[in-house]
């Protein structure tokens, strides 16, 4: 119940698809999705494996609540050793694909080996087969999704695929489903491409059941009511989307700008939610068309927008005139503030291209920002880049998105990510990230806790591993001072553990703006065999966090990798309320290790491991 109880093992080298029973003992210890797939991955691969070798595995995984009527119950994750980071990677996506996989009767799909030629996996309930993808290799996510539906004459198939970037080895390729929802970070799509796996196409009609349907409907209705009554999830997010944060974070002096040279962006208001809703002078329409939901979501924070047809980016490219997904805040920040570009239509275009070709807009924008700094410092020249790469150049943003999406020209170098790019040009200090993954949209100097969350995130710099912004800026569940590092280690740990549990359930972490684990527990308890309480969920979250940490330690990461770039530790923020501040990581990190039950070297102690049953 809730879990389908079986998983698919696809050996790409041999071309075989095999059904296996799900390890239910593990399901009870790790819940599902992020936790359960990480357990499988860490049991099955050598942590030191090259992420792009056939020995790495990739798991597409759902949670026990995926496919049910719980609000936001459409999530799935892609778990693997990340191509961008070499650390454990788990990227979560919405849309409709996760539900389709669950409805076909699969909790997860493990991909191993490497196909001798491009293939896609086609699943129709119990039937699974690898099909020739040579006609789709070299085409975009958008064309692949349409093409596969056409192949089977079935518009109801759901598809997750990689674009050309994933084939070309761009280090931060995504797995994109339903045209514009993505398992976005850490290069999970790069791993997929290295296996010659172009797409996974599913049609599922078997249904999903739960332990106690009557109690489940009641519990999920209670949860939906909390979301609807909450001003953030009931009104703020559907109306404004995540993009409302652009001005908020800028006002707090924590909007990283021009590769973190600055911490406030003079054009923030031109690229945020308010700008998206504004009627354009050129065509009398707004950039924003409507909000949209993922499967089962009663919040509906998603944005659907349309580019101004007179804008230079699309004037000669009618294929981008249609409405599509975005901008969301992280993408708008990376494509905008991180590069200094204040042109909303150019950002929307670059975001469409990221979706079309399957590249992570956060890492792409941040890497372009680093390249722009190299260019302005004279390290990179126009001869090398093919065009001027000055901060704020909207044309450069659009061209580089197209090139990087296909791994062509200077786009192939941008496709390395900022760490390898800046190392290549002898300026590694200009890479703004942790463990090889670029920062998202909050400056660790102006918001102390998020700096620690970045430094300790198991998949490299990430806001979604412990979103302390909720407390430090929005006051959820309680307001803490973003400029004060006191108490932040405990805050970070609490967010990290709770999030790991939520990421394993099949539900979206955005519900936590209104829900606590006390709201999750009755829904999981009514759906899954066993007794599920908030305490148990939190313990599972902590178990997952330590399992991921163990994997990274075994992969060769050490405490020295729980670090931030010097720019955040030594170059004080220049303006706004955070002026003069650096991140106080060295003060927070020892306390964090202690709270975690880890040694000074960042290794979980035997006592901690046994307490968590690891």
């Amino acid at each position, binding site marked *: 119940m809730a879990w389908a109880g079986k998983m698919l093992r696809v050996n790409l080298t041999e071309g075989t698809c095999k059904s296996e029973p799900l390890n239910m003992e593990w399901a009870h210890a790790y819940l599902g999705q992020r936790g359960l797939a990480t357990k499988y991955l860490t049991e099955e691969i050598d942590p030191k494996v090259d992420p792009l070798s056939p020995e790495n595995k990739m798991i597409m995984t759902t949670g026990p609540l995926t496919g049910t009527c719980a609000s936001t119950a459409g999530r799935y994750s892609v778990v693997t050793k990340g191509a961008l980071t070499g650390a454990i990677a788990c990227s979560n996506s919405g849309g409709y694909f996760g539900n389709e996989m669950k409805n076909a009767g699969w909790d997860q799909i493990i991909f191993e080996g490497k196909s001798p030629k491009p293939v896609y996996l086609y699943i129709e309930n119990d039937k699974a087969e690898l099909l020739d993808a040579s006609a789709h290799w070299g085409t975009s996510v958008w064309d692949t999704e349409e093409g596969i539906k056409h192949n089977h004459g079935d518009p109801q198939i759901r598809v997750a695929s990689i674009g050309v970037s994933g084939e070309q080895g761009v280090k931060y390729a995504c797995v994109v489903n339903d045209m514009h929802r993505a398992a976005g970070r850490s290069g999970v799509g790069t791993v997929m491409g290295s296996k010659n796996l172009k797409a996974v196409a599913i049609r599922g009609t078997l249904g999903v059941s739960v332990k106690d349907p009557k109690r489940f409907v009641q519990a999920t209705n209670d949860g939906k009511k909390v979301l609807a009554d909450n001003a953030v999830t009931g009104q703020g997010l559907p109306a404004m989307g995540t993009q409302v944060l652009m001005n908020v974070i800028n006002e707090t002096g924590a909007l990283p700008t021009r590769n973190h040279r600055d911490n406030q962006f003079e054009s923030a208001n031109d690229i945020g939610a308010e700008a998206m809703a504004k009627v354009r002078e050129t065509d009398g329409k707004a950039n924003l068309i409507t909000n949209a939901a993922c499967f*089962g979501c009663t919040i*509906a924070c998603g944005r659907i927008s349309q580019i101004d047809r007179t804008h230079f980016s699309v004037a000669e490219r009618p294929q981008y005139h*249609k*409405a*599509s997904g975005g901008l969301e805040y992280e993408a708008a920040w990376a494509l905008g503030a991180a590069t200094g570009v204040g042109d909303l239509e150019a950002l929307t275009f670059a975001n469409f291209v990221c979706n079309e070709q399957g590249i992570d807009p956060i890492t792409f924008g941040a890497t372009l920002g680093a390249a722009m700094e190299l260019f302005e410092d004279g390290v990179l020249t126009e001869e090398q880049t093919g065009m001027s790469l000055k901060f704020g150049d909207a044309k450069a943003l659009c061209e580089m998105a197209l090139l990087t999406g296909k791994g062509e020209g200077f786009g192939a170098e941008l496709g390395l990510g900022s760490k390898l790019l800046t190392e290549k040009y002898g300026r590694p200090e200009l890479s703004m990230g942790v463990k090889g993954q670029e920062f998202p949209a909050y400056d660790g100097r102006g918001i102390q806790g998020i700096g620690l969350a970045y430094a300790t995130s198991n998949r490299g710099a990430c806001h979604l591993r412990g979103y302390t912004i909720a407390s430090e800026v929005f006051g959820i569940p309680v307001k803490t001072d973003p400029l004060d590092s006191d108490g932040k280690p405990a805050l970070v740990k609490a967010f990290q553990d709770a999030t790991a549990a939520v990421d394993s359930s099949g539900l979206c972490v955005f519900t936590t703006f209104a829900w606590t684990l006390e709201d999750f527990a009755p829904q999981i308890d009514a759906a899954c065999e066993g007794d599920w309480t908030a305490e148990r969920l939190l313990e599972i979250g902590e178990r997952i966090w330590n399992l991921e940490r163990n994997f990274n330690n075994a992969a060769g990461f050490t405490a020295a990798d729980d670090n931030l770039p010097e720019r955040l530790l030594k170059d004080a923020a220049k303006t706004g309320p955070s002026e003069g501040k650096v991140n106080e990581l060295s003060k927070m990190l020892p306390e964090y290790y202690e709270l975690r039950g880890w040694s000074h070297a960042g290794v979980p102690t035997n006592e901690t491991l046994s307490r968590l049953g690891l």
Partner: protein
Amino acid sequence: MHKSLSIDPGKCTGCLQCELACSLDNEGMFNPSKSRIKIFNFEDKGRFVPYTCTQCAEAWCLEACPTHAITIDRATGAKVVSDALCVGCKVCTIACPFGTINFNQDTGKVVKCDLCEGDPECAKACPTEAITYVDADWTGLEKMRASAGSADAAAQA
């Protein structure tokens, strides 16, 4: 007095809670592929459109059925399929101009919206009131109210 499902695509977010509720009520499990109401995603236009049987007064499906398996529920006005009488010939699916009655391979019968005996699960599950269950004579009432409001605003300007 009968009621009708009233659909306002402008309010639909594409969450499919209606499909989940419909399938749970009719199939006993969460299975959007077996839902009698469907959301169509017109991706390029950014529009989500719920669609289901509108319960025609003179129903093509009912007229076409050779076994008289489709009858009118007097309490709700819904056109209801009797599984005992349906032979799965699918003539009704050809007759229906809107495509809202469909064959179910698992049961060998046709399925369509039956208004849940007057308490439609889809309307109850919709978080945005894109689907409501209203007076059958006045499905346009809210649209009229909105139009009246804007006409009045124009008159006052």
